[in-house]
């Protein structure tokens, strides 16, 4: 029990410290509004990518449908806050809840049959689902306002709210990964047949991972909608799924530390490339190809930054030294 506590305290302290550091930098203007939106974009991308990493890296299921779930979250928040007049933070939270419920239902409906598919077949099926979601959004004009999208969404999200949800979703996902269900999920990824033979309910764990990933994507979408104040269907094409996929692969499939690092590096790269006009995507493409050729396993492979264990070791060392003296 003692061990558990040290770890949790260490992480809580680290999160608080990071929050205070960003808060101080925003207040003093070191992070100006432009860096702030970059920071928010990076944090949102981490929320999406952590969820996808759970699906792809831990459960080993190749999903290309993330954009669909982001869109569900974004539109739920947009519709609840603009149509039903629930303004402010309660509106966002209600919208987020609606998005989470719809995403869960869709993920279950889609996941249970399609997760029987393997590899690229699953990828293409989930891509299809996300395109179907977008086609529906485009055509249900009474609800979604069609291709024009919904604008004038009250802007209630600021960096701190994104930070809080980033911490919450990451804790949710990591706790799942290190729980017994998470271990079972990892077992499926390593050898599905062996896991099944050991009595692991393969479908259940695959679907759970898929649903959790969908939920976090939807939460991120709600935050994005209430940060920008506008949603349009064209913002959720399959390119968005690919962007998230790139973060996960670039960081190292299965490494959550890698996801954080990759999202940050790609966010900064994007910022630098803004200056290059039409050359921007060419440079981005070259960077993508070179990175994958030279680090095919991603930046960090499967390394995890185990802060809790580090602190624990350090404490233990102290204790030992204390005991020795």
């Amino acid at each position, binding site marked *: 029990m003692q061990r558990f506590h040290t770890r949790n305290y260490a992480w809580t302290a680290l999160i608080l410290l990071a929050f205070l550091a960003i808060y101080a930098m925003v207040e003093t203007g070191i992070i100006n509004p432009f860096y702030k939106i970059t920071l928010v974009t990076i944090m949102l991308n981490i929320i999406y990518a952590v969820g996808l990493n759970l699906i792809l890296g831990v459960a080993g299921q190749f999903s290309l449908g993330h954009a669909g779930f982001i869109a569900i979250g974004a539109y739920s928040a947009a519709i609840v806050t603009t149509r039903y007049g629930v303004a402010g933070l309660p509106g966002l939270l209600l919208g987020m809840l609606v998005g989470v419920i719809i995403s869960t239902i869709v993920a279950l409906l889609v996941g249970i049959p399609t997760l029987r598919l393997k590899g690229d077949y699953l990828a293409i099926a989930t891509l299809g689902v996300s395109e179907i979601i977008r086609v529906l959004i485009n055509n249900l004009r009474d609800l979604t306002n069609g291709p024009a999208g919904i604008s004038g969404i009250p802007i209630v999200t600021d960096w701190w709210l994104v930070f809080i949800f980033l911490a919450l979703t990451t804790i949710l996902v990591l706790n799942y990964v290190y729980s017994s269900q998470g271990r079972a999920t990892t077992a499926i990824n390593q050898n599905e047949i062996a896991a099944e033979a050991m009595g692991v309910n393969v479908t259940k764990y695959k679907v759970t991972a898929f649903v959790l990933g969908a939920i976090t994507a939807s939460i991120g979408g709600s935050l994005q909608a209430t940060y920008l104040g506008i949603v349009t269907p064209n913002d959720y094409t399959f390119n968005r799924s690919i962007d998230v996929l790139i973060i996960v692969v670039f960081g190292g499939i299965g490494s959550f530390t890698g996801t954080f690092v990759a999202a940050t590096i790609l966010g900064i790269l994007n910022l630098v490339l803004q200056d290059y*006009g039409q050359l921007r995507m060419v440079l981005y493409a070259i960077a993508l190809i070179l990175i994958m050729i030279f680090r095919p396993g991603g930046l960090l492979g499967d390394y995890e930054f185990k802060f809790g264990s580090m602190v624990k070791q350090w404490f233990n060392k102290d204790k030992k030294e204390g005991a020795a003296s």
Partner: protein
Amino acid sequence: MNRMKKALTALFAGVTLAAATAGPLVSAQETAKLGANYELTGGAASYGTPMSNATKLAVKQANEAGGVLDGVQLELVEYDNKSDLTETNSVATRLVEEGVVGVVGPATTGDVLSQAPVINKAGVPAIAPAATGDALSIDNNGNLMEYLFRVCFEDTFQGRAAAAHIADNMGIKNVALVVDVGLDYSQGVADAFTEEFESRGGSVVTTESFTSGDTDFSAILSTLAAQEFDALYVPAYYTEVGLFIKQAREMGITQPIIGADGLHSQTLVDLAGAENASDIYYTTHYSNESEDEKVVAFQEAYEAEYGQEPDTFAALAYDATNLMIDAINRAGSTERDAIRQAIAETKDFEGVTGLFTMGEDNTPIKSAIMLKLTNGEVESAEAIAVEY
């Protein structure tokens, strides 16, 4: 002597203080930054790119003519927004941070609305060249977003203008409507058209739809060919309508095809083939055949610079940029609020897309003309007067 010295010191201090607190004052600098936020990559790149070209041309011409405010050179600061809402918001924030006096762009209504909160909060005037969505500058509470302007028609205006013209002047009663369901512009114009057309005794006999990016219209055309109507109304962009016209004519559909300013591009005729581009009408701002010296000069300069004829997007962006430059001159300073004031007070601005005055909702009051193409050439241009 002493008093004199004191007074001088006070005056000097006062001037320095004033210069320091007033921020970007004219006298304090030799260049003024003008921001451009365009879609150079991504889905809307084919609209953002000609706009960016036209803006560069306008700024270059202004600088060659001695800049603004008697010798202040304009520095164009342009970043690409990837046709992405978040990126557009980020670029707008960056432009504001870099101290631009005003922003032109972006192209699509969605991106303009994504930029709107940023520029309104920062108090930077922005002119959107082609964001045609209805009530663009009015927020959900019915308040005017003071810093957001545009130089194009509203969807409603064009739909009504076309409906009035073809019902009253062309004597057309039955129309088949073809809508691009992936395009808000298309749906907005089509809705206004239907309402106005039906109120004038016409009827929309059938509605077909396609999605932006489609190239094969044979299925909807085959269906249309089997029906009776006097004309087709296709408010969409030339990229799709060019092919639509070609395939329609090849399939033997000879009725007039009518559209909106999204068709205004030489590429429309290239795609359709000159032999098919007859009996094509569209509402737009100006005619390429216009004798107006401003239009002629713009077309020649654009072609000399980029090797192609400007389309409607380029023309609108050229006007947006020139309106911004004109407003700086009229404001007599590069102070953002003075520029906003000047844009709002624009009266009888002579642009290539016509003479216009800025309305109370930050949308210009413009007149539309109806062009008729025969064998790919503009045969006639008629002014449309619509009553609201």
